[in-house]
């Protein structure tokens, strides 16, 4: 998971990944859509590919990139434990609000 976190720990790479959510794209199409020069897009795609977040489909001279969701699912499973933590805190907030409603503060 280190590689995945490292890969998405860069704003430009997240932008590239976001752009691929809409479907497979070539490097040229990504460069057209994003405020990143084409060599930069290529470089970011290489890092994303090494982290397993992106895969390239080769057909003759044509190269098209798409998202691989598996590493993100792994990240999501890891976050699950932390989501429980958030859940507990939000429950506590609900309890506090409910308590506040039952015993309104007296206004002077």
């Amino acid at each position: 998971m280190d590689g995945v976190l490292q890969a998405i720990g860069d704003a430009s790479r997240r932008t590239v990944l976001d752009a691929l959510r809409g479907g497979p794209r070539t490097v040229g199409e990504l460069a057209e859509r994003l405020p990143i020069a084409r060599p930069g897009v290529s470089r970011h795609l290489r890092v994303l590919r090494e982290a397993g977040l992106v895969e390239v489909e080769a057909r003759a001279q044509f190269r098209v990139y798409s998202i691989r969701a598996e590493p993100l699912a792994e990240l999501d499973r890891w976050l699950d434990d932390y989501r429980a933590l958030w859940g507990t805190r939000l429950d506590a907030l609900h309890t506090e609000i409910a308590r506040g409603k039952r015993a309104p503060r007296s206004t002077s």
Partner: protein
Amino acid sequence: MTDRTLSTVRPEAGGAVVHVEDVYDTSVADLWSAISEPDRLARWLAVVSGDLRVGGTLRMRFTSSWEGTGEVLVCDAPHHLVVASREEDGSETVIEARISPEGEQARLVVEERGLPTDASDYAAGWQVHLEDLGAALAGRETSDWSARWRQLIPSYRREG
């Protein structure tokens, strides 16, 4: 666009060679400049940067979306250019271009060797490149490479 096919595929040991050729309404010298000068190459085939001498390493980004490195093996102006191309995954091919006079015009023959046996899609791709060269020489706009390629693929698959 015409439906004539410009490319052919022939087998070689362990793979295939794509052969593509066309005659252009220009001089040998002008055609040579179109296939060897980065500014002109960028208009129809590839953005090429790096050391453009024999033995030098090039960085190449084709209009097809193929990217990789290249090495100039032969540069015999204005007739013969050979470039080895290598993709990140290690696959290598050799692209050879020959130019000859054809009356007042000039003929370009391109061959790419080291391709996989089923190279019909590559053949369609090279036709798009040579059509784009024609457009660039005539001052017309080049194609949307992948759209034109998809359009040509069926006729090459029928031939194969």
